[in-house]
């Protein structure tokens, strides 16, 4: 009996094969364990359904799930653990998916509101990017994302200009030049720096750096992209140093020795062998730093002016208006209606940008892995 089903299954492709494997699993497993796992699965699914329906009864299937999981853990630990870890993985993915969908759905009204007509075709959301005025209160009410995108680009560019050269240089020193003792002390120290809460940087920026800058550059009041960029760059520095150092030290020793054997100096080896070999890893480090700069909220919010408009001229970094993150942080408490939805649009833009950057960093890392084959 089993044999025949095996044969037919194998004959009709992967789906049937999977069905056959499932049947085998059911046959082999103790019915008690199977029942427990079944109860867990059903109760968890109905808890999910209850959650989505915002039902107060959600607690019941969830409690059933907890009890059956507890029972299963005591009686059939192996199988229960498999089911539990699997369901945790699924719920992580599901939660992320729900958040993403929620952000997109919430932003729809303002995307509709900011439709613009091009050649007789109405394109939703186009006006968010084709004009530059943001005014949530006085008519004409406009929610342009351009000033915030401009602000984010300015801050990120300045932060990268600070973090990339400093970070790569420091990483090069730590990896290639510094004696091992220095490296063992400094590297963890730098990584601890990455853990300083951003509000601390923001606080110093708001109370000390910004007023000083306003005084020195004689701007009207405080808040400049230049100094926000510098502060955010310093915040991103530890990440860049740490990841770039990993990349540099993963270059195989044999490559460096080979170069040195040809009679090059240490410096020549670094510039012509080590850096090019680790180039993709170093780029990933810089990209991670950039990602942090884009997403940085607290420091930007307290140091910027919070008035969404373009600076004049565009490259004027001595005035700092708003970034995508600071817009959300400044207004979430008071916004309602379309203004709230506009904040979600800022969230969507951030989401997509950071997603692209982290995919880019992953890709580069994967390439490096393939190229050198070493541990990263």
């Amino acid at each position: 009996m089993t044999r025949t089903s095996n044969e037919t299954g194998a004959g009709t492709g992967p789906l049937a094969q999977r069905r056959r494997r499932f049947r085998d699993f059911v046959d082999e497993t103790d019915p008690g364990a199977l029942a427990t796992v079944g109860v867990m699965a059903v109760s968890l699914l109905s808890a999910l359904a209850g959650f989505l329906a915002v039902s107060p009864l959600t607690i019941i299937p969830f409690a059933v799930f907890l009890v059956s999981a507890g029972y299963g853990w005591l009686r059939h630990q192996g199988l229960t653990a498999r089911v539990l870890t699997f369901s945790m993985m699924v719920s992580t993915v599901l939660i992320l998916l729900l958040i993403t969908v929620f952000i997109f759905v919430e932003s729809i009204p303002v995307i509709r509101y900011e439709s613009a007509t091009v050649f007789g075709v109405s394109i939703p959301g186009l006006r968010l990017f084709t004009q530059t005025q943001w005014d949530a209160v006085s008519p004409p009410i406009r929610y342009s994302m351009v000033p915030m995108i401009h602000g984010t680009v300015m801050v990120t560019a300045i932060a990268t200009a600070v973090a990339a050269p400093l970070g790569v240089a420091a990483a090069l020193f730590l990896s290639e030049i510094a004696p091992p003792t220095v490296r063992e002390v400094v590297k963890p120290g730098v990584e601890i720096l990455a853990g300083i809460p951003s509000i601390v940087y923001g606080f110093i920026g708001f109370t000390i750096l910004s007023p000083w800058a306003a005084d020195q550059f004689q701007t009207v009041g405080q808040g400049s992209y230049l100094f926000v960029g510098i502060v955010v760059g310093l915040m991103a520095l530890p990440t860049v140093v740490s990841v770039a150092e990993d990349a540099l030290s993963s270059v195989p020793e044999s490559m460096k020795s080979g170069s040195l054997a040809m009679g090059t100096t240490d410096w020549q080896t670094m510039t012509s062998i080590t850096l090019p070999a680790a180039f993709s890893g170093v780029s990933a480090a810089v990209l991670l730093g950039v990602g942090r700069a884009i997403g940085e909220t607290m420091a930007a919010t307290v140091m910027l002016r919070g008035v969404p408009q373009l600076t004049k001229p565009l490259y004027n970094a001595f005035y700092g208006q708003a970034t995508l993150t600071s817009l959300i942080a400044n207004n979430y408490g008071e916004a309602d209606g379309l203004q709230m939805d506009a904040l979600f649009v800022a969230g969507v833009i951030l989401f997509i940008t950071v997603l692209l950057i982290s995919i880019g960093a992953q890709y580069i890392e994967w390439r490096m892995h393939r190229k050198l084959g070493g541990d990263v």
Partner: protein
Amino acid sequence: MSDGTTSGTGVSRRKFLVSSGAIGAAGLAGCTSNGQNNSGGGDGGDGGDGGSGGPALLTAEGSSTVYPISNKGSSYWNANAPPSDGEYWGSNDEGQVPGWNEIQTDDNLADYFAAKYGFEKTGQRSNPPYNTTVSLSHSGTGCKAVRDELVDIGNSSGPITAELGWSEEKANEEVVDHVVGRDGQPVVVSSDIYDNGVQQLTGEQVRKIYQDEITNWSEVGGPDQEIFCIGRAEGSGTDTAFRLNMLGSADAPMPGVDSRFGQNQQVAEAVSNNDGAIAYMALAFTSESVQPIGIEFEGTLYQPDKDAENTIFDSSYPLNRDLHMYTKITEDTPSGTDKREGAFLNMFLTNFGQTVFVEQNNYIPLPTSDIKSEADKLPEKA
């Protein structure tokens, strides 16, 4: 009190409400047995109209804006702290409450105020002559509740005429309006501007500054310095009130604003750190480097001085609104305010009450003249 933030309608007040709401709810739970018998009647003037023996529980309900004042008063009242406490009532080695010099009594807090209206003192901590409780809802709900005699005091941040659509006459027939404090913002400038001659502006000048028609202090008699114009979070209650009262309409444009902040602390910090700054914010955050200025509005100069003829604490000052506690006129109390209500409200109309319950919640205390006229609305003291 609270965490000392926005006096407009900011987030922090909500936070404060959440925390104090819990206290209020606990207080409510503690007195329900006492209250259920009597809460309907706003007529327990001489005490003892219910089964519980003492005077009826005093109930209040309404606006979340008035709630911090009302609820803090109620908490202080119910605690009935002895004069040796120092922190909540009276004085000791560690300190004394504001306005104590005018009070100087040996009685506990609630005993002192209640005795003025002939209630019996208990002399015990946590056991006032009668308990008080404040519920949190909305201005309109508070007005309706006092109209229907469901509560003794209806808290409202808007006039009852607007909340219930009443005429002035109807309101005067039905309820008595007790103003206990004000919500609003003085206009402030940084000290360099204040010291260089700009100590008052006209409403029109403020409007022009915020609408980018005036961009230099020299245009209004100050030094040659660009104006750093600070506003509040776009669309917040404070922002809307400012647009409405200063700029003419709730959706008036504000192109002159250089910077916007969500919290009073940030505004105060930015004003004191930058030259040539102008802003509007809660009074409690003004200081040497953040100076409130006088505003001339329609021919009247409102001065930042409590005892002046017209002050920025007046209700006619355009950035202010009154915070009301309404009491109902009934057959038993034709004056509208019975003795229980009178004793409780009187607590707010002292320097102690104004400082502790109004100013410490970041509201504007009443000027001296208004305290007098409000006190005249209360029943005769025993």
